[in-house]
């Protein structure tokens, strides 16, 4: 199997709750992300949870970092697809191509109750709605060609109208004309990160996702999942390794033990990297980047520096998602 020699590493901070969340200020998040960036980690994945709404947090963090990927969770129930696509397109221009949208395939009953949907959706209805939603968002992200903006002051031509495209989507749940009023992303489109996949979501993920977050399961189950997703992606005519599989886990044991655990899983060829869950504390991040990371680097399993300037470049992703 042809694959990268080094693993991708992302960080997720376990959500605080109550007074613990209130104690987290923006300055601490900035320091944590800057530390992760100083250690060339691929990305930080933010839950949409107290004390910040995730997209606003990512916008602010984008201006105090320059290389690390910033992924925000945002719910398909809380936002209209046009608004969500626009928010992330804007984040991607602010961050110079370093953002990703973490879309969940499970509906939260809490959200339905606060977003004028007290009855929620049926599981099948929610899946069809989410699939349509993802297609709209990814379509809107491609509404402007990369060379659409002319900035021709003398000729009076700001953009080339032929390089701006209407979406004209009319579906079961939404109708959206487009285009976005935000320029094309510096990394083509924001990365689409998906999690909480059930068996019936796999075709959607295989067609649209750039990164899939999975739980740590037995080596046999992990291989089945990897092979299944890879085959489905190939059926959608996507390149091998077009969808990066990240295993979510919390480090435990000594740095060497954790490195052993990551190495074994990575070398089995069933994942591309790891989403490391840490409490939002500097000491916990220090332990990882000062203990586990050097161990991985010594074994030739982790990068010393960034491979590129955008999240897609660092993850080894082609542009796009669904085509």
């Amino acid at each position, binding site marked *: 199997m042809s694959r990268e020699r080094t693993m991708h590493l992302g960080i997720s901070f376990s959500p605080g709750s109550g007074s613990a*969340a209130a104690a987290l200020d923006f300055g601490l998040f900035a320091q944590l992300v800057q530390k992760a960036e100083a250690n060339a980690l691929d990305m930080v994945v933010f839950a949409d949870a*107290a004390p910040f709404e995730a997209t606003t947090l990512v916008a*602010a963090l984008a201006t105090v970092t320059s290389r690390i990927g910033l992924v925000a969770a945002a719910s398909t129930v809380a936002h209209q697809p046009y608004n969500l696509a626009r928010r992330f397109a804007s984040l991607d221009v602010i961050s110079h191509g370093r953002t990703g949208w973490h879309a969940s395939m499970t509906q939260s009953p*809490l959200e339905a109750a606060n*977003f004028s949907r007290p009855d929620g959706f049926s599981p099948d209805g929610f899946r069809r709605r989410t699939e349509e939603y993802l297609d709209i968002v990814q379509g809107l992200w491609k509404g402007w060609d990369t060379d659409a903006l002319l900035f021709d002051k003398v000729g009076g*031509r*700001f953009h080339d109208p032929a390089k*701006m495209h209407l979406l004209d989507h009319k579906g079961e749940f939404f109708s959206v004309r487009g285009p976005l009023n935000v320029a094309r992303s510096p990394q083509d489109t924001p990365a689409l990160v998906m999690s909480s996949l059930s068996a019936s979501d796999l075709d959607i993920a295989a067609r649209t996702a750039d990164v899939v977050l999975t739980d740590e399961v037995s080596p046999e189950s992990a291989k089945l999942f990897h092979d299944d997703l890879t085959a489905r992606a190939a059926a959608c005519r996507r390149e091998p390794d077009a969808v990066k599989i990240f295993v979510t886990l919390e480090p435990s044991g000594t740095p060497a033990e954790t490195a052993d655990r990551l190495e074994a899983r990575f070398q089995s060829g069933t994942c591309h990297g790891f989403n490391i869950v840490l409490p939002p504390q500097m000491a916990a991040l220090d332990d990882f980047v000062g203990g586990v990371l050097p161990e991985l680097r010594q074994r030739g399993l982790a990068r010393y520096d960034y491979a590129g300037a955008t999240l897609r470049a660092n993850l080894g992703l082609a542009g796009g998602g669904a085509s």
Partner: protein
Amino acid sequence: MTANRRQMKLGAFLWATGHHIAAWRHPNAHVTAGIDIDHYIQLARTAEAAKFDLIFCEDAAGLREANIAIASQTSRSIGFEPISLLAALAAQTSHIGLVATASTSYNEPYGLARAFSSLDQISGGRSGWNLVTSASHIEAANFGSTGLRPHSDRYERAREFATVVAGLWHGDGANALNHDGRNFSVRDPLDLPPSPQGAPVMVQAGASDEGRDLAARTADVVFTAAQTFEEAKAFYDDLKARLVACGREPDDIKIMPGVAPVVAASEAEARAKVDELQELIPDDVGVALLSSYLSTDLSAYPVDGPLPELPATEGMQSRQALVVEQSRRDNLSIRQLARHFAGARGHWRVVGTPAQIADELQARFEGGAADGFNVMPSYFPGELDAFATLVVPELQRRGLFRQDYEGRTLREHLGLKKPVRK
């Protein structure tokens, strides 16, 4: 200057390359403004160094111009989404208020309250929400609507929306909201920590009767467009009277009309600056804007000729009649009239030296027609720099504007009460 003298509030209204329709073509305009976050960071820092109360961003969830050929000759089809833009600017500033526009027509109150609360957390209590309702068919087509809601429906939704948002912001975070209304149902309290300024500042801009009523009940700041002193004064007095009728104090709302200043060391230089911008308006852009304003297609008439006789249409209102009258009186060609109209965009334009501009602002401020102004520079960064370095010191010298920030939150800058959480 006396310590307790009432001082004006100033907003810096940031809009891509500038407020003039042809701003982007000006040799000194930053033409890539809509894709350059560093440009906005620089503008925010300029405004903060000049002690502006706030920066303000307008918004539309869609293109601004349906005619694609016309749109491609303006810079307004692409830009940043305001909430993400202001969150980015929050991390790069320390005092200035951050006000973003968001529509009640295509959002849900829980999500919007949450986003502005988060902006408030990130900025240490500097966020504000400018409530608007959406009237544009272009926006409507991005949200699955078959047609626009009638005005009263839009305002009914806006009223309920504002009530829910205020309930979430003013709640104690523990008790359920349990709102079950005609447009929205929201069960839980907001899941974010309390605002450092009590609640984000509520801003409104609607000038209609319903808009004024909603503002009188819920707004902390009102932006408005007024060409003449009389117009500004009438609006000011009307809104403050409505405020009192709602049981609020007159000072509970700051009324900040828009002003489009063009300043230079001499009046002649200032006039030359205006002419330079007017020359840059492409004929078809100017004529299209004028046509749409007059509800008559003027593209078939010679652009150097006079305005043709216009049929009296139902769409023709008093202000439009004034435009026609002016063209007759001043013997203006279609091109001249189009440029005149497109350049000013219906806002109050003041052209002159720093002292002349300060005189005009002072007259409206002290004459009871404004609590402050939302400053709309014709192009960026040059004309914001000019206002900050020429007009602001003049206002400070006269004791009309602060020398330094008195507090850290937007409510403190504006002199607004901190709401009590229930």
